[in-house]
């Protein structure tokens, strides 16, 4: 398995605005290729509180002067994420990855990418891959208010370049359509707009997305988020109830699951 454990130099931290931030990391030249939906475990601080690494979807990948760069999109929630946001240029962040099973793009057709808040972190590389494959898609990006739609313009550019659009949805109406992102999804599904749905966001939102898509006979995949201890399959902490009655591991069997694999 191509997983590396490497120290990465921080190239920059950008606020979008806080609590959302992106952190750019320079990886060693042989860092493996990252599939859309894969994640890394990042350790910002050699101290013991917080003790465990934090899981981050790989938001974006680029290359400069031969060195691969990873960009992580995060939201400051607790100690771990705030330590990471406080890194400065030149600091080291230890990264274990890439980890997990990413999105499968075969037969995506025209796709809906449904993001809830910082869940968009799992969907930008997917948008890039669809764009590169010449596959049309729309991005439905929801949040409580405008500030929750971090980096929305990057999605808008990719979607419009692929013959689709960004549909912004906020609960307070401060950007785009007022309401819930799942309502926008339901409208499009009713109009048979998409052949597949890809989603990442809060679990209740993804459960609703999966239920709506299934009701309309549209297959889809969700990038799940659970608390993780290790990210590589050792702690067995990230159990996901599987449709077959077992517990899958989010870190190894996922984080991307088909809608019908998960017992929502």
């Amino acid at each position: 398995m191509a997983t590396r454990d490497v120290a990465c130099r921080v190239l920059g931290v950008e606020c979008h605005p806080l609590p959302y931030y992106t952190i750019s990391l320079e990886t060693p030249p042989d860092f493996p290729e990252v599939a859309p939906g894969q994640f890394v475990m990042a350790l910002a601080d050699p101290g013991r509180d917080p003790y465990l690494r934090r899981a981050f979807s790989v938001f974006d990948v680029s290359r400069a002067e031969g060195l691969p760069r990873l960009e992580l999109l995060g939201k400051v929630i607790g100690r771990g994420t705030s330590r990471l946001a406080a890194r400065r240029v030149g600091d080291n962040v230890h990264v274990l990855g890439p980890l997990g099973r990413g999105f499968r793009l075969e037969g995506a057709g025209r796709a809906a990418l449904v993001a809830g808040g910082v869940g968009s972190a799992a969907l930008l590389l997917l948008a890039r891959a669809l764009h590169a494959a010449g596959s049309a898609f729309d991005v439905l990006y929801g949040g409580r208010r405008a500030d929750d739609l971090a980096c929305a313009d990057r999605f808008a550019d990719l979607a419009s370049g692929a013959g689709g659009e960004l549909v912004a949805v906020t609960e307070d109406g401060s950007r785009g359509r007022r309401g819930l992102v799942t309502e926008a999804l339901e409208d499009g599904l009713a109009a048979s707009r998409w052949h597949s749905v890809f989603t990442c966001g809060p679990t209740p939102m993804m459960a609703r997305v999966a239920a709506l898509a299934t009701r309309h006979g549209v297959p889809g995949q969700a990038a799940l988020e659970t608390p993780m201890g290790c990210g590589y399959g050792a702690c067995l902490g990230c159990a996901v109830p599987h449709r077959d009655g077992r517990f899958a591991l989010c870190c190894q069997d996922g984080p991307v699951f088909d809608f019908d694999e998960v017992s929502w």
Partner: protein
Amino acid sequence: MASPPLTSPQAVDLAVRVGTLELGNPILSASGTFGYGLEFAHLAPLEQFGGIVTKGLSLEPLLGNPPHRICETASGMLNSIGLQNIGIRRFLDQVLPDLADYPAKVVVNLFGTTPDEYVRLAELVEPQPGIAAIELNVSCPNVKRGGIQFGHDPELLGDLVRRIRAVTGKPLIVKLSPNVTTPAAIALAARQAGADALSAINTLVGMAIDTRTRRPRLHTVKGGLSGPAIKPIALRIVFDVARASGLPVIGIGGIETVDDVLEFLLAGASAVQVGTALFRDPRTAARLVGDLRQRLFEDGIASARELIGGVLLEPGA
């Protein structure tokens, strides 16, 4: 001290014995923190481990507990995995043949819900040359009908160990619970029943609450606390049970640095297991082997064995 001066870190002798279990170095992975070892060979150099203690194995596979199974706490974490495992037979058939190829000694951690189940497990393990020792899990806090009652009652534990002793000649290590008033009493019972060694400690029962939702952070409400937060407690129990029982002890609890390793050896441990630190960094165990070698070289200590039980105490302490 007439031993010749050390010429290089490579000259340091890291080999230790835990009863009749001989280890190339005193660093093992702790049960439940590194699966069955083999599946993580791409992330950590298994050949450098002194030993690998498997995830707790039962007669039949177990699915484990529903989420949430873990949550982080100050300098540690709570877990309630529920002993999810692949079952002893699949381990013996599919994992052991490859795992036994590594120089690291394979220690199987076994648990049952009845003495008969433990005995059956030990019988299945006994003819396996690739298994160096048995660690008995009598102290998991996360299963309702699990082995915990054995680890909390000297009489029940003594009966259990006697029955297992009767069917195996392999080194028998009893893993102690910290969730009792006097671990030394359990340790003595284990010794009298024929145990070869002790490992200490398992996790401490703990709890955490999400103040926004007012719900426990774990599905099972309570779970096992591990990580650096528990190290002083583990050290105290290792010190106590080593002195009380005279048995060799494998120290477990929050070990992450070479200093932690030395503390446990000085307190009386003959070896240590690294657990939660592997979640943070899968290479911790291998790093500790190198760090220990370097530290002993710098301190002019020819053998790790010289440190065992070497804490200096005032007379009468």
